[in-house]
């Protein structure tokens, strides 16, 4: 199977190049047979890459350590689950996995459009296959072939980094890759629009769902990564502005901008060049993110490999895509003229535009901070990293403006908002926001970022709640429905709008969770068995943790030793049970890892870290006199709102994505001329 997979990978490259050439040529010459052959190449490519991926998985499952990739990312006693996930555990496999996902999405795009949007499809097929060809060239010629053999067969592999042996870490990369590769489809349609000259908003309408789906995967991929960092890295944080985290954030920021600006093009025929620019930029960011993650160019907790060839190939490809994009846009510039102009600064159009500028500003700041160490190294020979303070100082104010826009955008009038309109829509939410701010100040909160986040969050949530309430009420009145059915029909009849509002609410919830970190509490204390540690929550109550003792084991599973500290936790006298936190030394890597204990509630997490074991040797040999340890106990308010916000975001996006039921066109309805405008215009 592995051997067959290797052959499949070699056949895949000529198939992709063949298909690309024929699809482009077929589009240019209007030859349907060439295009069909190109489209079949997409299906064939998917099949071949599936075989290749199964080949890698088979090598993992059957412990074929003669393969460099398997020897470096697996060993005999690795769980089967992680052996399968070995496909994307390291650079080599994940590049193949990337190519497989891209081929899979390409097949879906070609199949679903086999009877419609045909004017786009030759160039879409060609572009998708060109990108696949690029990844195949990398896989086969940049010293990253997952099927590369060692000259000898080791008795066992080096094993998978234990920190990656975590559920969230297993689903985090594939989810991000789904987001990255799904965005390739809108990009291919945009290029096709430029190549074929069909520059109206059709390409946007056709790819709207793809864009939203990509955004959905990107958002969840980022959240899964945060969850992993929170559970596994053992310092209580979920985001460290690490270069690879930033790399996944960049396409998210530009894709969010794109998702909003296409609505302006659809509704007002504006921002056509801008949208082309954004779709090209976002695609470049997805490639850039893959490149950063998988080239080890910048030091990061994720860095894996140092391979110069792959860097040059990736940079060359990005330069090529950028050049092609710019040339095509310049060539088609006359056809991309705006049909309208922004009439007023106070309008929904300008709110959208402002949202775009802010998102791009954030993307630029993140990019600059990420690349800064490289730039300084190039200029001065010294690598200077910018830390979280830089990113927070720049991005928190940007984030707050963005948050406010999440409330302003949905209710400000199109074209031109009058003063009356602003008063009518913003008086109540503004007052609620101001009230929240005053409340926090009275309570003695002086962290302005937290106060601003909660105030603006309250402002946005009031707006969204009122939208839902007014819409439901109006629909119930006009259609004579009960409030429940009215709400369901309201959302059902314009899923995109109401799904979007739910996503906005989710973003507010997630931002509030971030702001909750302003109220973090930390206690660091050294304790002997029987000692208690007390920590007060900002919500008024206190936790008492009794250190019961430490127990150690040696050579269990994949560890050299494990030292597990037990804490009995109670809250205001009410026992919550025992929690453990531990230090462990894995066989695979020379590093002591920390496992934390987390007591999670809706409003706060109690996060327990075994920070230090002063007499480690004594503790490991179970010396009763060596039980003295240091704990770091954290209270992290609202942290679980990030995950709840993620769920809400998922619900909102799924509502927006959900396909409408099959269309029923009743002849009688058309003949009768439809219902009255007032009736059909019922909210929804």
């Amino acid at each position, binding site marked *: 199977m592995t051997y067959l997979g290797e052959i499949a990978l070699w056949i895949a490259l000529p198939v992709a190049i063949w298909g690309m050439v024929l699809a482009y040529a077929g589009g240019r010459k209007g030859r349907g047979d060439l295009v069909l052959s190109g489209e079949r190449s997409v299906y064939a490519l998917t099949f071949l890459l599936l075989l290749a991926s199964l080949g890698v998985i088979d090598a993992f499952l059957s412990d074929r350590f003669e393969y460099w990739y398997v020897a470096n990312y697996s060993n005999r006693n690795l769980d089967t689950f992680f052996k399968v996930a070995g496909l994307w555990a390291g650079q080599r496999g994940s590049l193949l996995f990337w190519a497989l996902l891209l081929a899979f999405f390409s097949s879906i795009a070609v199949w679903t459009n086999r009877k419609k*949007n045909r004017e786009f499809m030759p160039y879409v097929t060609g572009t998708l296959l060109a990108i696949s060809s690029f990844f195949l060239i990398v896989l086969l010629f940049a010293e990253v072939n997952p099927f590369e053999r060692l000259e000898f067969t080791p008795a066992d592999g080096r094993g998978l980094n234990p920190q990656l042996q975590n559920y969230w870490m297993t689903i985090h990369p594939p989810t991000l890759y789904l987001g990255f590769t799904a965005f390739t489809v809108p990009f291919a349609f945009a290029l096709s629009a430029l190549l074929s000259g069909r520059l109206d908003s059709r390409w946007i309408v056709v790819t709207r769902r793809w864009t939203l789906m990509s955004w959905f995967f990107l958002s969840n991929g980022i959240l899964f990564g945060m969850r992993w960092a929170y559970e596994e890295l053992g310092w209580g944080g979920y985001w460290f502005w690490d270069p690879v985290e930033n790399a996944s954030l960049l396409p998210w920021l530009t894709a969010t901008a794109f998702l909003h600006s296409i609505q302006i093009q659809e509704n007002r025929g504006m921002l056509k060049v801008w949208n082309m620019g954004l779709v090209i930029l976002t695609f470049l960011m997805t490639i850039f993110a893959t490149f950063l993650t998988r080239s080890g160019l910048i030091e990061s907790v994720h860095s894996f490999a140092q391979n110069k060839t792959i860097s040059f190939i990736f940079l060359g490809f990005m330069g090529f895509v950028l050049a092609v994009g710019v040339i095509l846009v310049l060539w088609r510039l006359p056809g991309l003229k705006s049909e309208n102009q922004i009439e007023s600064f106070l309008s929904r159009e300008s709110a959208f535009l402002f949202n775009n500028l802010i998102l791009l500003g954030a993307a630029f700041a993140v990019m600059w901070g990420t690349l800064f160490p490289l730039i300084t190294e190039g200029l001065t020979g010294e690598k200077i990293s910018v830390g979280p303070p830089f990113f927070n100082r720049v991005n928190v104010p940007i984030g707050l403006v963005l948050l406010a826009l999440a409330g302003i955008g949905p209710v400000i009038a199109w074209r031109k908002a009058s003063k009356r309109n602003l008063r009518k829509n913003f008086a109540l939410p503004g007052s609620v926001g101001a009230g929240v701010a005053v409340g926090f100040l009275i309570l003695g909160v002086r962290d302005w970022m937290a106060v601003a986040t909660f105030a603006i969050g309250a402002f946005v949530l009031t707006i969204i709640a009122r939208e839902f309430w007014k819409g439901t009420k109006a629909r119930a009145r006009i259609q004579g429905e009960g409030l429940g059915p009215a709400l369901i029909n309201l959302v059902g009849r314009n899923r995109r709008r109401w799904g979007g509002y739910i996503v906005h609410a989710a973003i507010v919830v997630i931002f509030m969770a971030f702001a909750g970190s302003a109220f973090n509490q930390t206690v660091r204390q050294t304790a002997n068995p029987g000692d208690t540690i007390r920590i007060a929550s900002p919500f008024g109550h206190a936790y008492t943790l009794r250190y019961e003792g430490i127990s150690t084991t040696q050579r269990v599973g994949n560890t050299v030793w494990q030292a597990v500290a037990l804490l009995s936790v109670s809250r205001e006298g009410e026992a919550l049970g025992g929690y453990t936190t531990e230090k462990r030394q894995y066989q695979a890597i020379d590093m002591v890892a920390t496992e934390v204990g987390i007591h999670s509630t809706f409003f706060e997490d109690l996060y327990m870290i075994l920070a230090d074991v002063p007499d480690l040797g004594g503790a490991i040999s179970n010396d009763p006199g060596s039980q003295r340890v240091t704990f770091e106990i954290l209270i992290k308010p609202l942290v679980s709102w990030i995950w709840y916000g993620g769920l809400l975001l998922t619900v909102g996006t799924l509502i927006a994505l959900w396909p409408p039921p099959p269309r029923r066109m009743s002849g009688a*309805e058309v003949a009768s001329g439809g219902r009255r*405008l007032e009736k059909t215009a019922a909210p929804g």
Partner: protein
Amino acid sequence: MSGELPLLLAGGLLAAAVVLFILHPLVKGLEAPLEVDDDDPGKAELEHRRRVALGALRDAEYDFATGKLDETDYRRLRGELARDALALLEEEGAAEVPSGDGVGETEEAPGEIDSLEAEIARIRSGLREGTTCRACAHVNPAGSRFCGRCGAPLARADRAEVGAGEVEEG
């Protein structure tokens, strides 16, 4: 090494199957359709813009119904939107009831689309008969002399010239 022969054979077969699959259309002359399915991109775009224009009118209705727009703002916005929508509806080259190609990609529920299309048909027939108000796009009962919504006179005589002027604009 002899153990690799079957694998080599399997690889060869795989390559042959792939080549056959992708060359088949060229040998047999099979073709993928290339024609634009909505036969005229310009027409499809016009259809799209009609839908968007009507959708914007509905949004205005909705904003008024839920109190987001007050009477004055609503009238002004509706006037502007109606003018744009009527200009688009009067452009030639559209079927009475749009073909609905690509409806799968629109976000509205089917009821929404059907009624939107019916709405477009109704307003267009109103334009021909002179019952569609040019100020607010309201369709009045046959024989009306004034618009039942905004009170503007329904002047049939100026239909041609207003229409012509607005076609340019749209």
